[in-house]
């Protein structure tokens, strides 16, 4: 299978949108390996704060991140965690717990706006950009900057 960055020729970008606490986020489809139903993570002793635990995916142990904790998202309407996105994180697979996976979207590069347009401060470093689809703001997460180097190191140790 040929390796792609998810971009087509026309310079469009495919993203998978999902919701966490009624907020809509998205990740580039190229980063996603698989979407599975949520299953309870087995907690690891002395694991970092942001790692919820590990899940077994057809014999492979995959660490699972809790984005709510990582992004320090606090919402009044806590949605139920229904899916886990299995994504490529360097040479490792990592699970990200989300509420609901929505759909696969085809967006143009021009639609993507800089996150600074909406968010000031350090919060924007985790984002690749923001786009507007069907009058709904979608925050496109940047997996490369989602975790710090130390955290990435800690993750590799698992």
């Amino acid at each position, binding site marked *: *299978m*040929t390796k*792609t960055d*998810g971009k087509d020729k026309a310079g469009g970008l*495919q993203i*998978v949108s999902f919701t966490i606490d009624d907020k809509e986020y998205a990740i580039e*489809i*190229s980063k*996603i*390996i*698989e*979407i599975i*139903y949520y299953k309870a993570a087995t907690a690891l002793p002395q694991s970092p704060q942001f790692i919820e635990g590990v899940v077994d995916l057809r014999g492979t142990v995959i660490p699972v991140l809790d984005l709510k904790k990582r992004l320090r998202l606090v919402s009044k309407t806590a949605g139920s965690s229904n*899916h886990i996105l299995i994504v490529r994180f360097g040479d490792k697979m990592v699970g990200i717990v989300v509420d609901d*996976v929505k*759909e*696969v979207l085809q967006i143009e590069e021009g639609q993507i706006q800089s996150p600074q347009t909406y968010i000031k401060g350090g919060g924007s470093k985790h984002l690749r950009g923001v786009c507007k689809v069907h009058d709904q703001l979608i925050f496109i997460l940047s997996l490369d900057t989602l975790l710090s180097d130390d955290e990435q190191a800690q993750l590799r140790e698992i």
Partner: protein
Amino acid sequence: MRSFRDFIVQRLEYKILSLILVILVISFTITFLIISSREKQSSINDEREKAKLVADTIHETLDRDMMAFRADVVRFLMDDLKKLEGIKRIQIVRGDAAYVGDGRGRDEAFMDFKTLNDVKQRITTLYKPEWERDHVDRKANTAAGTDNPEFQQYFKKTVQALSNTKLGVEDEKALKRGRLDASYFEEIDGEQVMTYLRPLPLFPKCALCHGTGYSIRGILMISTSMEGVNAALKQSQRYLIMASLGTVGALIILLRMLMKRVVLSPMNNVVGRVKAIAEGEGDLTSRIVVNYQDEIGDMARWFNKFVETLHHIITQVSRAAKQVKAVSQQVLSGTKQITDGADVQMQAIETTAAAVEAVNVSINQVASNASSLSALSEESAVAILQMSSSIDEIARSAAVLATTIEDSTASILEMSSSVKQIDENVTSLNTAAEDTAASMTEMDASIKQIRATVFDTVQLSKGVMDDAERGRRATELTIQGIGKVQDYSNQVNAVIRNLTSRTESIGKILNVIDEVAEQTNLLALNAAIIAAQAGEHGKSFSVVAQEIKELADRTATSTKEIHGIIRALQDESKNTVLAINRGSKSVEDGVRLAGEAGSALNKILESSQLSTSRIQEIARATDEQTKGVRRVSESMRQMTEMVQQIANATHEQFKGSELIIGSTEKMKDIAAKVKNATQEQSIGNKQINEIVERVTAQVKEIAQSSGEQAEESANILKAVSEIKKVVVQNMDAIGKVGIAVEELMKQASQLSQEIDKFKL
């Protein structure tokens, strides 16, 4: 002596004088004794004072000259004083212990050289030749009078008092004034003297010349003669006695003269007069001439009074004596007459005795008659008593009659008032009857109305009954209808429950479809991801995946809609069930209420049936009542008529009762009169009874006294015979009296002669 005493006793003058003399002598003797005793004491005091004066002089001289070392001056002074008249002895007896051998003072001072020699030895430088000039040197120096026990006693006592005593200046003065001085009487050469003693103690100032060791220098002894004093006393006594005697004599003479003038001459005067009367052969006419106001005058006056009284008495006696004489003569003649009379009396008594006997007989007859009279009287008394009691009974009956009449009067009065009341009542009854008749008419009308009303009520009641019957039927139908409703509702309920279960089955199926759709969606997503990662090759696959996803989405949407419909259906069915349940409950309530209504209607039906029958009864009763009212009205009319008749009758009765009352009043008066008359009769009867009783008693008394009289007459008979004896004795006595009267006459004439002697 006897003749002297007799002489004194005979004369009052001498009696008085001798009494005065005795009193005077006693009083003068007592005065004399007191005066002479006091005079002697004062003379002795004078003597003692004199001796003390001399002792003071000598003491002073001793004190002064001894201190000037001039003992010789004192010696000469003593010698000079010895020569004074009246002073029998003056000397100082030494008290020095050295010269007092046996405790008694004996040596006389200045009579030897003992003291002088001693002094010379003590103070050689002060020697003076004058000390020895003309100094006596007695070999046996013993002071005179020292053997006197009184002196010895004094000496010892004084030495003892002054020894062991420190004498001060005050003591010296006191001694000089004679604190320890003493005196006593003794005799020197057969002459009485008073010896005065004064101690001369050893003062400290004396010790220079005389040394110490003894308490007393000496005792100064002065003896003065008492001859002069005694002579003067005797002279004074003699003078006193003579003066007393003279006074007594003079007083006696004076008293005798005064007595003679004041007492004796009047006395003698009175005595002379009395004597003259006594010797004047009973001259009771002469009187004493009274010139005195004292006791003698009183005596004379009272004597005159006495003579006067005596004169009066004697006059009366004389008169009496004359009368006695006259009476005696009369008595004499009287006695003679008595004697004659006694004879007559004797005869009379005899006749009396005979008469008394006759009387006795007659009295006995009287007594027997009185007894029979008494019996008769008692019988009549009994008869009267019976009559009296019967009259009493009549009186009582009359009283009862009176009360009965009173009672009947009262009853008639009451009746009359009752009749009046009846009259009134009848009048009111009449009005009442009329009122009743009116009321009955009204009642008749009312009953007719009631009847009409009852008829209406019966119709109404029947209507109610029909309605109630219809209601009951309707209720039964309702209950049946409700029962059907209940059945239907139960059926609906079952259908809905079935429907609900079916709907739930559809829900379950829908869930499965939903799940499939979702999984399909996920698969489509994953397929899209894979297709995307396959790049250009996976592009068609991506389209298929997209379509699959869309299908899945549509399916999910449909199922969601179906879910909504089913949920709505379920809600509806739930509501329907609830509604049915509520309806069921309502139906139950309706059934219950319909039942209740049915029973209520039944009750109404029963009640209305009952009330209908009652009302019918009432109607019947009302009919009866109407008939009754008519009958009552008729009766009332008849009654009114009767009442009217009664009223008329009562009115007449009332008039009649008034007449009766008048008659009864009269009857009452008559009864009262009868009663009073009967009562008076009863009282009269009682009085008669009492009189009869009294008569009976008197008759009894007469019978008794007749008996007694008979006895008495027997006694009189006895007495008459006794009298006869007495008369005989009297006649003897009268004879004796005649003799005595003759004697009396003699005595009376003698008395007359004697009284004639008084000059009246």
